[in-house]
């Protein structure tokens, strides 16, 4: 942008702050699940992820030792122990009923069920009774504990190995890679023919491909499902590879044709004078020169196939061997709707690969978007 004479600093500030705000709105949601997926699952359910770095206050309940462990001291019966058991923590307050876990400061005494209870900040408690207490179960102790922030990779271990996300990750790979590579080759040849070869009906064919670009996927599902069942393809990887190939082809042909048709005519003519056949020209001139367009489409198709739920749901089964990550995530949303530690970790596993691809190859993605859209797709 031009910074002409007399640029106003106030405006510059306003622009910076607005962009900061936009960026915040667009990144915070993702940050939320990233942070949450590393939090301890007990902390995750009681405090917002934005408090993850501050110690969390948590209402807790512990059970004191049973009355028969009471010992006589100075004429009184005393039950003592630590509310945290084996662990450590800090008590910020305690109370005598579940409704009021924050009634008393640590170190003070309170009356409870005929005894006096004291809980220290480090969790040591003692209950003194004038007489030997009776009963079999220990008293319930209510307190508010302050726990230091806890981060863990346990959530990832859980989702990867016992929730089946690991297997789904492999399934998704199995779907994605061939479904990205196959259409490229088919489309590149078609795009070359549509750009540089003369044949009747070329304009009509191009118009048809532009039209097919926007055909909703929904149209194709039932006819293809029936077709697959009739010819015995059923729910198989071959079936979904070809389906993704079919659905990706119009965009692939359109993008590649726009690019290949824009290559300098003289280069192709020069190759013809040099004696190259169309097949040679395609392999030795067009393919190497079209690398940016091929990369653009590859990224598109990769992201689209990786992130697809609909096609996978229709053309692949629900079993362990075929459930892809998006499908698994959807299943978890249904069955583990409240278990945010599972959901956030799973979601992050599902989005990390596309995000890495995205940041690594953004340049090509943008180029592809521009080629595909600005010219009227």
């Amino acid at each position: 942008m031009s910074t002409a004479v007399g640029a106003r600093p106030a405006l510059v500030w306003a622009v910076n702050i607005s962009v900061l705000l936009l960026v915040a709105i667009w990144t915070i949601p993702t940050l939320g699940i990233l942070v949450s997926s590393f939090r301890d699952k007990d902390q995750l359910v009681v405090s917002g992820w934005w408090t993850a770095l501050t110690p969390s206050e948590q209402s807790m309940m512990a059970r004191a030792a049973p009355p028969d462990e009471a010992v006589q001291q100075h004429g009184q019966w005393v039950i003592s122990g630590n509310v945290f058991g084996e662990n450590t923590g800090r008590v910020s307050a305690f109370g005598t009923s579940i409704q009021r876990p924050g009634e008393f400061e640590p170190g003070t005494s309170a009356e409870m069920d005929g005894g006096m209870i004291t809980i220290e900040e480090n969790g040591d408690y003692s209950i003194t009774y004038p007489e030997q207490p009776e009963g079999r179960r220990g008293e319930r102790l209510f307190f508010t504990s302050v726990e230091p922030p806890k981060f863990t990779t346990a959530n990832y271990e859980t989702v990867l190995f016992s929730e089946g996300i690991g297997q789904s990750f492999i399934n998704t790979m199995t779907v994605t890679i061939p479904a990205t590579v196959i259409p490229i080759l088919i489309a590149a040849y078609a795009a070359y023919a549509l750009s540089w070869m003369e044949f009747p009906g070329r304009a009509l064919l191009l118009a048809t491909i532009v039209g097919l670009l926007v055909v909703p996927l929904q149209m194709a599902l039932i006819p293809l499902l029936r077709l697959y069942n009739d010819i015995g393809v059923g729910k198989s990887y071959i079936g979904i590879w070809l389906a993704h190939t079919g659905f990706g082809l119009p965009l692939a042909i359109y993008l590649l044709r726009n690019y290949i048709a824009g290559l300098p005519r003289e280069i192709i003519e020069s190759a013809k004078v040099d004696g190259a056949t169309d097949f040679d020209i395609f392999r030795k001139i067009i393919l190497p020169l079209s690398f940016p367009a091929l990369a653009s489409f590859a990224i598109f198709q990769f992201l689209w196939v990786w992130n697809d739920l609909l096609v996978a749901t229709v053309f692949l089964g629900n079993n362990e061997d075929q459930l892809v990550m998006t499908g698994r995530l959807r299943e978890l949303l249904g069955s583990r709707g409240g278990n945010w530690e599972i959901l956030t970790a799973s979601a992050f596993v599902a989005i990390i690969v596309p995000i890495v691809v995205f940041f690594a190859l953004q340049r090509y993605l943008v180029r592809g978007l521009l080629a595909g859209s600005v010219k009227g797709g």
Partner: protein
Amino acid sequence: MAGVLMKNIKKSYGTTAVIHGINLEIRSGEFVVFVGPSGCGKSTLLRMIAGLESITGGDMYIGEERVNDIPPSQRGIAMVFQSYALYPHMSVYDNMAFGMKIAKAPKADIEKRVREAAEILQLTPYLNRLPKALSGGQRQRVAIGRAIVRNPKVFLFDEPLSNLDAALRVATRIEIAKLKESMPDSTMIYVTHDQVEAMTLADRIVVLSAGNVEQVGPPIELYERPANLFVAQFIGSPAMNVQRARIDQTGEKTTIRLGERKADLPIPSPADMAGAEVHFGVRPEDLTVASNGNGLIDGRVNIVESLGEVTNVYLDVENAPEPIVVKLPGVQRFNRGEIVSLAAAPDKMHLFNEKGRSLLHL
């Protein structure tokens, strides 16, 4: 080596004809330049020789062979394109070797030919570079080198210098002239819209206009004896001045009346042209300033362009629609509105009939 022969060559796109039956013989070893304004069909004609455009009608021969239906690679031609058309992903070496590799020539042969061509064009240090690491002039040399490696019967150049800047254009032009000298047997056909290139390079120039050949001949002949008004005004800069005149007397010499004045020209004219309206032409550089009223034409100075080496003076002449241009050597001073009388040597004058044909070419 071989010449090129065109018999009634035609080209049309659908119903639009762009080349209207061209007959032309280009001899083996000749350097021929096609020149003409843009859209005259010169590039199309070249591409038809190359085989990049199909031929709608007529016969095209390269050497003895009729090539109408032969693919470009089998015609024994090589082409240098305006945009160089180098393969951007291949090194200079691979660019030059591509054609031979496609033809599956032995590696040693390829190596030898590429090295030779690189040597001629001083490209040896750059053989491993990619085209994008070369300057414009070097790229153009690679394009020429690629043509040399093919060892063609006919070289085709399609405006090869128009993407270069002015200084480089002159240098490369001289290189092409040298190249031709070093390969006297090769036939070269060169398309340009730049008449300087045409005049300096050509053995013969073919002037094209609207799909027709206007004149074919050595550069100086085209300059001195243009066959028609189109060629007369196309060759030379500024363009030839043309005025209406009337023939007074026909014969071995022709006397014309130009306004009030008369002039005797050493140009024969047939008797039936007595009294006919003609176009009288004289080149700006052939006009001189005469002492008051003794010239052929009087004009009022309108614009003076001082270029240092020459001075162009534009004069308004009574009853003439176009101003007259005079090109005078060195720096000359004129005042606006001053009346100047102009003269010319009779053998530098041209006469064209009503249809624009030169009386010398009737």
